[in-house]
């Protein structure tokens, strides 16, 4: 029995020693491979940095555009990373290299390849390179019926491809992408709404007219996402339509989002609809959103109504009113100090003191 145990221990020791040796050898081999790769990449990398650093122009561009394929393969990931980190002349030079080496033409072909991973790689590259000629193909990927399985659900890798295509469309900033992006929110498997909202915002103010049209969509999720985008874009001229949705939309969630969007739009005409919503008999959630938006609006005319709202028996409303006064700058802070200094233990004083404390913490005083 003891002999058997000794043999077992011996065998286990042998196995573990062999495994440790194997791991050490594999690590050494990997380290060697990485060193060799780094050595091979050193000269091309230096040429790439010289180009991105913005040398005299032609020689640096030729050095990278004309380098052998294996050297380019060694630095292509760095070039791709740098595209997102630099701007101006440096970015233009890097983008030019991708075009000169035929990478752009290949990526445009790959977008229609049919293999999701190849398509996703091409979409990511073309988005980073800012190649607007890729927009139609990317739009078809966002709404591609092949992205749906027979059961009508988006399968894993296809869903990932759609995410990459949405991100690329945002980077490209072409307003013609509004409709496909918005339509990706419909159907049985909507795209992630925050991702779509971010892409819509990246399209810039030129996308506002198409976004206004999209507010007619029957799905509340679409209207909410578009409202979010319009608010964050600060889309001038959208106030009336957004105020109408705040008042009339059948979905409470859409009305709340409309309140937030009105606050972000920051125009004087948003004051009345927000005050009406804040003092209405709507849900507390909607009233709280409207009160918060009054603070974002930055209108001094909101100080008196907010001073009344801070005395609301509803904690949420009073708390948001104090927060809104805090955001209204020195005049709002003066009101909070006055409320905080009143004797007694009323709720308004407590909310005012909390808001002033927050202002102190966030350096707003």
């Amino acid at each position, binding site marked *: 029995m003891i002999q058997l145990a000794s043999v077992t221990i011996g065998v286990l020791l042998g196995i573990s020693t062999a495994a440790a040796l194997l791991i050490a050898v594999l690590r050494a081999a990997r380290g060697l491979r990485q060193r060799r790769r780094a050595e091979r990449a050193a000269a091309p*990398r*230096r040429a790439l*940095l*010289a180009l*991105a*650093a*913005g*040398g005299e122009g032609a020689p640096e561009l030729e050095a990278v555009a004309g380098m052998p394929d294996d050297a380019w393969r060694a630095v292509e990931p*760095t070039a791709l*990373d*740098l595209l*997102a*980190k*630099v*701007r*101006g*002349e*440096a*970015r233009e030079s890097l983008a030019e290299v991708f075009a000169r080496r035929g990478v752009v033409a290949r990526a445009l072909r790959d977008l229609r390849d049919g293999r999701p991973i190849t398509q996703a790689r091409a979409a990511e590259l073309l988005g980073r390179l800012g190649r607007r000629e890729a927009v139609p193909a990317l739009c078809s990927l966002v709404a591609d019926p092949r992205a749906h399985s027979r059961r009508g659900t988006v399968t894993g890798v296809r869903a990932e491809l759609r995410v990459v295509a949405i991100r690329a469309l945002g980077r490209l900033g072409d307003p013609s992408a509004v409709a496909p992006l918005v339509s990706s929110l419909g159907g049985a498997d909507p795209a992630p709404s925050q991702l779509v909202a971010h892409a819509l915002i990246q399209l810039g103010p030129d996308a506002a007219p198409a976004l206004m049209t999209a507010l007619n969509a029957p799905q509340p999720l679409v209207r909410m996402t578009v409202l979010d985008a319009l608010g964050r874009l600060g889309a001038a001229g959208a106030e009336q339509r957004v105020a109408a949705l705040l008042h009339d939309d059948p979905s409470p969630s859409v009305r709340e989002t409309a309140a937030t969007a009105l606050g972000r739009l920051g125009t004087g005409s948003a004051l009345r609809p927000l005050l009406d919503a804040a003092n209405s008999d709507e849900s507390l959630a909607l009233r709280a959103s409207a009160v918060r938006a009054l603070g974002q609006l930055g209108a001094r005319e909101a100080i008196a109504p907010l001073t009344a709202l801070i005395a609301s028996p509803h904690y949420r409303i009073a708390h948001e009113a104090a927060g809104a006064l805090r955001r209204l700058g020195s005049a709002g802070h003066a009101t909070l100090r006055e409320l905080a200094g009143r004797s007694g233990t009323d709720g308004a004083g407590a909310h005012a003191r909390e808001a002033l404390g927050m202002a102190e913490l966030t*350096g707003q005083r």
Partner: protein
Amino acid sequence: MTTVLIAEDDEDIRDLVVFKLEQAGFTVIAAPDGTAALAAAQAQTPDLAVIDVSMPQLSGLDLCRLLRADPRTAGTLIIMLTARSQEGDVEAGFSAGADDYIVKPFSPRELTSRIRALMQRHGREEARRSEALG
């Protein structure tokens, strides 16, 4: 010769800035994190430091405060180079003691120009102070 410290954990950006600044004639010290940058700054007292905000071990803002608090490095000019572009982030950078703030994606050419401008302005101020003293 002007010595510039670059504190940046992103190897690509660090190497690019080093390349650009050396090309522009500066002596450059590179550090991959806040702690290494602090040690390098205390040992070599650079004229100017380009500091990323998000770095391991010691953040760029903390590094900035420590440089300002140390008499050896209190006079080092500081440029924050960061992807954080919100109003509050910029304000935090200046509150920590930065002299300038550059948002990524950045232009290497613009960075060089800002370093030169800051150095010149600082040189003029120093000269004016010396004149006033006597």
